[in-house]
């Protein structure tokens, strides 16, 4: 075991810790302990069998299209929530409802989970997540931890990266084009990029029940919109988008889009956008209400920011907008108040397509020399900011008061995002920080050329940042949200109450099961219960399509059944109280056994049936 302290050091540390443990008789295992950087690390992350973690961490799974749920501080992978990608064990994309939600796509690129907020703090209702590739946004309901809505592909949005980033009271989530394209998307010569291509920023409204609908879009110059963040407190009502490629290049971007010393952070007043739509100041393009910012003064401004800035992050007070330089070794702090003053003073240096460009020196209050490759910033609620440094493979901690770097810690390796406990809200808890690394190289047992990707846990409660746990993950943990478990636990349903099952084809018992023919369709209302399917034998004719509507009538915690048909693409899991529909059209006559594919009981092997298909 490498990286283990020497024996005498262990003895000392653990003797001290044991003594402390005896003295305080700490039942929850929190706090206290020796101050050694790693000596009591195990204790800080240890969650005893049967105990719960303090936090849920929701990490996006990049182009696996999924969201992974971890417990912190233990770093245990608790579950996977399939979102944009079919997944056979849960049956996501296999039953008719989830298949319809996926809309035929087999992949998605899940980047930025955003928890719903009330007054700028996580409220634990929903988690939104974007699919960059196919310009979609999904909503996961956190009472059941399931994807309940997917909106998109959003018209005109081309590569939805700067998403989701929820507003202070969950009025909106946003989408924006990373790869500008013609609007509407028709053939154009690529050489006409500057004239014929456009960026698009889309505002997706969230109704009281969480339902998403596209409210309006804003047409922009063909920059590459990169990241966003919603204002809070004094800056509530605004949303900020960073961009690269203000050069408006269309080939060899790594060189051609890195010419300008400064690109932009765009500030968009979404209340003005809403008013403009109400006043009819829009054009309908591909079904979307598209606003031209030149026609709506005050809607949008550009804040110069060095250099191809990546993340844009609003601090907990909502008074500062932080741009992370990426190609500049600084993180730039803009003052929201100074930005407002510059607008009043018309302190502009030019415009792009009718969008005023504010003078850099008028809004900038600091350039913090954080290190190389600054990408993203999070907060601890105690006046410090934490910026990820991709090129340096480090996290820099700096003061929001003096703008000085006070601490750095190495991470392994090539950190992208980082996420602190409630670290993008008005009240970060300041306990934990996860470094979300792109590359793990030598950190885990070798297992061929494919390496796990990884997160690393950093304790923020000590005088200096202490990296105390490696957490391997499947696919990049692109970005994450860390929320106090107490905020979710009271609302989590551990079964689907059968009284709330209003599925049109639900069956609660054998009496309610049926086999009904409708032309060439055969609808089977079926019950699954330990250790039977009712009905468990069935005969159809070749050419008929059978719909199995299977209800798991159990209300027992964690007793899920599966429904799989041999030689088919039908398989899914049915949670207690849930009804799911499998559509199956056999290609050949013969016998098709079906069975419970999710272990349920001692007589699970017996939980099977036969479908006979007559020639």
């Amino acid at each position, binding site marked *: *075991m490498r990286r*283990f*302290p*020497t*024996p005498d050091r*262990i*003895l000392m540390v*653990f*003797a001290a*810790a*044991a003594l402390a*443990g*005896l003295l*305080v*008789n*700490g*039942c929850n*295992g929190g706090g206290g302990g020796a101050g050694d950087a790693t000596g009591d690390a*195990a*204790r800080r992350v*240890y969650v*005893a069998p049967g105990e719960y973690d303090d936090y849920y961490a929701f990490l996006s799974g990049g182009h696996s299209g999924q969201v992974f749920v971890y417990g912190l501080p233990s770093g245990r992978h608790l579950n996977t929530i399939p979102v944009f990608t079919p997944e056979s064990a849960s049956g996501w994309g296999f039953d008719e409802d989830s298949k319809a939600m996926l809309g035929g796509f087999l992949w998605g690129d899940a980047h930025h989970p955003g928890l719903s907020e009330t007054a700028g703090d996580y409220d634990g209702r929903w988690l939104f997540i974007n699919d960059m590739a196919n310009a979609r946004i999904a909503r996961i309901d956190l009472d059941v931890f399931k994807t309940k809505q997917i909106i998109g592909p959003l018209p005109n949005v081309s590569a939805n990266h700067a998403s989701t980033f929820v507003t202070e009271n969950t009025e909106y989530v946003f989408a924006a084009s990373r790869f500008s394209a013609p609007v509407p998307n028709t053939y154009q010569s690529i050489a006409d990029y500057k004239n014929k291509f456009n960026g698009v920023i889309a505002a997706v409204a969230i109704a009281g029940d969480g339902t998403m609908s596209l409210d309006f879009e804003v047409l922009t110059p063909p920059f590459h919109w990169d990241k966003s963040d919603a204002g809070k407190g004094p800056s509530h009502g605004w949303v900020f988008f960073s961009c690269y490629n203000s050069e408006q290049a269309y080939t060899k971007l790594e060189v051609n889009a890195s010419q300008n010393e400064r690109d932009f952070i765009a500030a968009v007043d979404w209340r003005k956008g809403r008013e403009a739509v109400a006043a009819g100041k829009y054009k309908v393009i591909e079904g979307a209400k598209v606003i031209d910012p030149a026609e709506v003064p005050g809607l949008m401004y550009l804040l110069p920011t060095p250099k191809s800035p990546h993340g844009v992050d609003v601090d907990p007070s909502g008074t500062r907008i932080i741009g992370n330089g990426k190609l500049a070794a600084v993180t730039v702090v803009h003052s929201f108040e100074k930005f407002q003053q510059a607008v009043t003073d018309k302190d502009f240096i030019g415009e792009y397509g009718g969008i005023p460009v504010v003078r850099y020196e008028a809004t900038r209050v600091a350039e913090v020399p954080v290190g190389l490759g600054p990408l993203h910033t999070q907060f601890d609620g105690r006046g410090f900011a934490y910026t990820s440094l991709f090129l340096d493979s480090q996290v820099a901690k700096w003061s929001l008061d003096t703008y000085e770097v006070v601490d750095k810690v190495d991470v392994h390796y090539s950190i992208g995002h980082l996420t602190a406990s409630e670290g993008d809200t008005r009240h970060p808890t300041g306990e934990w920080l996860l470094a979300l690394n792109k590359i793990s190289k030598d950190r885990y047992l070798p297992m061929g050329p494919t390496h796990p990707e990884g997160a690393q846990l950093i304790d923020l409660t000590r005088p200096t940042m202490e990296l105390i746990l490696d957490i391997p993950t499947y696919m990049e943990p692109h970005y994450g949200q860390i929320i106090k478990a107490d905020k979710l636990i009271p609302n989590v349903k551990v*079964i689907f*109450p*059968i009284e709330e099952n209003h599925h049109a084809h639900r069956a*609660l*018992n*054998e*009496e309610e099961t049926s086999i009904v023919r409708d032309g060439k369709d055969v609808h089977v209302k079926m*019950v699954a*219960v*330990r*250790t*039977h399917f*009712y009905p468990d034998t069935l005969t159809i004719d070749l050419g008929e399509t059978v719909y199995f509507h299977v209800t798991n*009538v*159990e*209300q*027992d*915690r964690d*007793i899920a059944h599966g429904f799989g048909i041999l030689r088919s693409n039908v398989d899914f899991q049915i949670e207690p109280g849930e009804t799911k529909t499998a559509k199956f059209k056999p290609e050949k006559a013969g016998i098709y056994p079906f069975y419970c594919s999710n272990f349920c*009981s*001692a*007589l699970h092997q017996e939980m099977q049936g036969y479908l006979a298909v007559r020639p």
Partner: protein
Amino acid sequence: MTGRLGPILLAAFILAGLAGCKSGSEEKAAGGSPAEIAAALNEGPRAAESMTLNPGLASWGEQLFKDKACVTCHAVGERKQGPDLAGVADRRTERWMKRQIMDPEWMLKNDPIARGLMAEYALQMANQQVKDAEANALIQYLLRETLAGR
């Protein structure tokens, strides 16, 4: 060696720190060991003697027996995945049935009769999240069927 020592000491520390956190106080508050509680459930007259039939409640219970999916595992006069419930109010006390219906996990861990049934049926009864008033109605239904079957 180095690697082994740490965990052992850690475990010792954790045990020291956690000792005494979960005493048997919960059980004591409930009035005895699990075995004693289980034995008490089975004491006294059988349900059919101790209870009076409430036909209104019994017919709600009959509906619940279907809606809560009891009927997928049980019938009166037939063995399905679960025991035949014919005459069950002559076999069991009211309190025993209520605990079996509302808290089958506890019964299957602690009650000798329920454990005997589990051995016979090779199945753990489902907890159907039955509420107190619903359990009373279900037992009334089982009582009605027992009396009718005599």
